[in-house]
């Protein structure tokens, strides 16, 4: 039995997971229209490489990665590009983003796929293949996986496969592990190969015994994993936010990722189990990331997991599970960290937004499941938030600094180490929306730093301009002086000396020489 470690705090909210694990993953039918955003990942927006009216095949590249941190975007099915314009996406800002509208032709016709054997390629080639396959982290942050695999000279000891899935309601990883464990293990082996890691640890919360058994079985059955005997499934205690990367690393290895550093700095890298699955599909089958498993749950008639094409409107997806009549909104993600989607015509992102690579779950909400927040009372410093904070912060102090706009002190109290897990808000007896205050403070600080950067740049530009004008003036003056001098010399040179002048000059030089000699001897023989 491996020794496990624990992190400070954490909470045990009702898990509400069993509702959506009764049925196997089902493929969602082709919709009438797909909206595929070009910015589904962390980093730069992909550049459209198709035009309106183009016919595209399933898996065809429509967005080219643009910049170091960026990822490709593909057509999820075959059809016609009807529009490339700004559309609403599931972002808390409610701002639109560049999307391609794809009208499926119903044939679901693939491009030619190029499966590769990862062992016959260099790591750099594999990174490029993953980048062009649009593989990003499926745990929620959608960070391009190829970037996480570019580790430079650092030695990676441990590769962690995150199957914790600690947020209530969400079961997409659980079901994927139960049903497709073999492919996850093969993907994990590819990742291990690319990182040259010594061991692969699968962290799965102990409330998923079926998933743990399936993974163990897949590891035993897998030839490549068997070869190096380095894969191990570890049941970790069920506690939120145990699936947060830094907390999971702590539990499995006892190491703490230093503040402001990356896991690779301590020889660990972490990928979601669904990402490993996608890596396997992308290389062994040549399939780019076109679909993912999404949990539809909450206030619906039949909660379950669907395999969904990227770009399917969420309202069409929820309709498959039939939202009950008292549904008053939707949450994309889990109840702890998810983004609210409103019913039609309400402010903020609406439920018609498309499923993207980061969409792991959609919860239909009702007043009964998610009662409206009670009015907030003042903080009584009871420190229940301190007790549950997985980052060992003092949430009550951060709240105080945020609301009084003492951003400097908030930073000094490690505001940016807050992972916004919401455990503090969950336990607050005064019902203060604490995380909201931290988000506000963080965005204010970022905005100020950006403003300061702009101001600094402007000042630098101004200073440089002043300096340049000064220099040009000086150079002009110098040039002028040089010109004058040259003119004078030329004038002198133009007049040849008379013999008399020549003797005068020679006499002057001789006198100067004499004076120098006298002075010299006086210095050398002071008393003489």
């Amino acid at each position, binding site marked *: 039995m491996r020794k496990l470690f624990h992190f400070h705090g954490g909470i045990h909210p*009702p898990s509400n997971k069993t509702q959506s694990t009764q049925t196997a993953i089902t493929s969602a039918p082709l919709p009438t229209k797909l909206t595929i955003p070009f910015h589904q990942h962390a980093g730069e927006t992909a550049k459209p490489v198709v035009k309106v009216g183009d016919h595209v095949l399933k898996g065809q590249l429509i967005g080219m990665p643009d910049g170091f941190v960026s990822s490709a975007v593909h057509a999820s099915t075959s059809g016609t590009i009807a529009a490339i314009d700004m559309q609403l996406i599931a972002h808390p800002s409610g701002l639109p983003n560049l999307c391609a509208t794809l009208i499926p032709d119903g044939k679901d016709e693939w491009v030619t796929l190029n499966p590769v054997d990862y062992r016959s390629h260099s790591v750099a080639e594999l990174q490029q293949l993953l980048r062009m396959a649009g593989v990003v982290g499926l745990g929620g942050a959608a960070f391009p996986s190829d970037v996480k695999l570019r580790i430079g000279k650092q030695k990676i000891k441990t590769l962690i496969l995150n199957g914790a899935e600690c947020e209530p309601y969400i079961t997409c990883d659980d079901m994927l592990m139960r049903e497709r464990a073999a492919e996850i293990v093969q993907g994990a082996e590819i990742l291990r190969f690319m990182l040259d890691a010594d061991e692969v640890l699968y962290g799965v919360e102990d409330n998923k015994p079926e998933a743990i058994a399936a993974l163990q079985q897949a590891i035993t059955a897998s030839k490549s994993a068997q070869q190096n005997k380095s894969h191990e499934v570890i049941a970790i205690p069920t506690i939120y936010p145990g699936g947060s990367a830094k907390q999971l690393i702590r539990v499995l290895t006892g190491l*703490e990722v230093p503040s402001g550093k990356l896991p690779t700095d301590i020889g660990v890298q972490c990928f979601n189990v669904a990402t490993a699955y996608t890596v396997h599909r992308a290389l062994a089958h040549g399939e780019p990331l076109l679909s993912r498993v999404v949990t539809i749950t909450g206030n619906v008639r039949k909660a379950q997991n669907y395999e969904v094409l990227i770009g399917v409107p969420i309202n069409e997806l929820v309709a498959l599970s039939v939202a009950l009549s008292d549904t008053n909104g939707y949450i994309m993600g889990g109840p*702890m960290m998810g983004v609210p989607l409103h019913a039609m015509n309400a402010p903020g992102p609406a439920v018609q937004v498309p499923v993207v690579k980061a969409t792991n779950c959609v919860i239909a909400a009702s007043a009964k499941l998610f009662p409206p927040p009670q009015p907030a009372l003042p903080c009584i410093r009871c420190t229940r938030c301190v007790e549950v904070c997985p980052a060992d912060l003092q949430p009550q102090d951060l709240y105080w600094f945020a609301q009084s706009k003492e951003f400097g002190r908030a930073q000094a109290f*490690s505001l940016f180490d807050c992972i916004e897990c919401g455990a503090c808000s969950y336990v607050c*007896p005064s019902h203060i929306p604490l995380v909201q205050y931290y988000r506000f403070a963080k965005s204010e600080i970022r905005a100020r730093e950006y403003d300061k950067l702009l101001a600094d740049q402007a000042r630098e530009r101004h200073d440089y301009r002043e300096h340049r004008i000064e220099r040009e003036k000086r150079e002009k003056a110098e040039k002028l002086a040089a010109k004058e001098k040259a003119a004078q010399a030329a004038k002198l040179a133009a007049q040849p000396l008379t013999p008399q002048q020549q003797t005068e000059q020679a006499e002057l030089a001789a006198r100067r020489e004499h004076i120098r000699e006298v002075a010299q001897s006086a210095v050398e023989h002071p008393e003489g």
Partner: protein
Amino acid sequence: MFFSPFISKPDSVAQIMLKVILALIPGIALYVWYFGPAILVSITLASITALATEAAMLKLRNRPIGPFLKDNSALLTAWLLALSIPPLAPWWLVVVGTAFAIAIAKQLYGGLGNNPFNPAMVGYAVLIISFPVHMTHWLAPQGLVLAELSFAQQLQYIFSGVLPPSLTLDAISMATPLDTLKTHLHLEESVQQILNMPIYGHLGGQGSEMVALGFLIGGLYLLASRIISWHIPVAYLGSLFIIAAIFHLVDPTHYVAPLFHLFSGAAILGAFFILTDPVSSPTTNKGRLIFAAGAAFLTYMIRVFGGFPDGVAFATLLMNISVPLIVLYTQPKVFGKKGKQS
């Protein structure tokens, strides 16, 4: 449905305060058993005054009255203050003390969550400085004084100040066991002689030691239900015990045994109910230990060398002042900044 998290624990400030109030009940029950029902009159008086003052102040401050009256925090202040005042005190003493605690010590500082000092202890301090005579006439346990008043006579005295003919206040009341000990030590009597007086029981004063035991039971309930953490009660009672033990071991004729200090006066009540007030105590665990140890030291010094019979209230207030400093210097290390890897 505005922002995450969308779920929360079914808990509230009102529930926390209510649980603390309920935890006082075993102590109060034993109070009534040993000293009669007069304490219930002061608790009722204080409660009414606290709620009325809170409502009036909220109105003056243009704050919503309903949610703050229902948070039970004013009631808790009222109960704690009432338990610190002699039950036979005239009605206006309770009213003045409670009104001061709520209006000045709590609301003028910004109300719930914003008071740097424990309001009940501010109320107590004002009363003992302004009305020292009224604050020292305590009820004696039954059978220990010359004459006993019926409940009706007690009520009459509380509200009109009129005693039955031929009785004086001194005849029906007594000083607290701590006060008595101090007075008699000044008369050059030894601790052993003094503790033989009938007002003393096994651990502290007769009756009052049982009340302290009642508060201890309530305090253990608060610990068990995780409303308070162990740091303050353990550090406070532990430090008080150690300091008293050192003095007692050096000179047992002048310094009473440590258990006496724990079960006398407001030590137990202070350890579990007063010093643990979240608003006016430190938020860090290390800070709580320092805060409580400091309060224990001050309590002992005031009790043994100071001018007041008990020191819990002043010790609390003095340590309340130090809270921001203590908290600043006891910040725990943040995840990823611990400097050590294990």
